[in-house]
């Protein structure tokens, strides 16, 4: 398991307000289909910024960026976060 994935899951668990456990979702599972709302996505984004010391630029503020654990991992990688 990649180094960033456990942290992403913990942040989703704490901020995603998902009706299911983010700790057991597959990395490619669609978070929106599992109940992630746009507003909760904002909290997830801000918590990710805090945890990884990055800032999501406008170009990454897309629904697709936060649609799965793997998508978030890819977005963080594009911001230079070591995997």
């Amino acid at each position: 398991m990649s180094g960033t994935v456990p942290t992403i899951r913990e942040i989703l668990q704490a901020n995603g307000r998902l009706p299911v456990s983010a700790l057991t979702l597959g990395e490619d599972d669609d978070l929106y289909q599992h109940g992630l709302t746009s507003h909760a996505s904002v909290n997830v984004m801000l918590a990710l910024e805090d945890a990884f010391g990055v800032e999501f630029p406008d170009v990454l503020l897309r629904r697709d960026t936060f649609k799965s654990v793997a998508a978030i991992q890819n977005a963080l990688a594009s911001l230079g976060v070591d995997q």
Partner: protein
Amino acid sequence: MTTLVGADIQDIDEVRRSVELFGDRYVRRIYTDHEIDECCRRAAGVDGALASRFAAKEAIFKILTSGNPWASWREVEVRLESGRPTIALRGAAAEQAARQGIATITLSLSQGAATAVAVVVAEIDREQ
């Protein structure tokens, strides 16, 4: 004339929690300076006012068919004109609305103790 309708509902406690957790970073990422100023002057409560504006932004994104539902919340601004809510679009949101031929946008906001609701009706004056 084609009519598009978008609607969204936002839990006010969720917004309150975001303000408590992330403070100014949350507020300034989502809302324009004008919206923040108006919400802070709302006697009924800042959190409910912010929630209604978030719902309005999401309602707009539902009628903009760019395939990018929340590109930039700050490009959609709710303004109160003579007490009536209106929508001002900027940047990519305004460009997308123009591409779709949206001529007018009417906004209605409603707020209860726990939730805020926004309904947007857009009229298109030409088919794309």
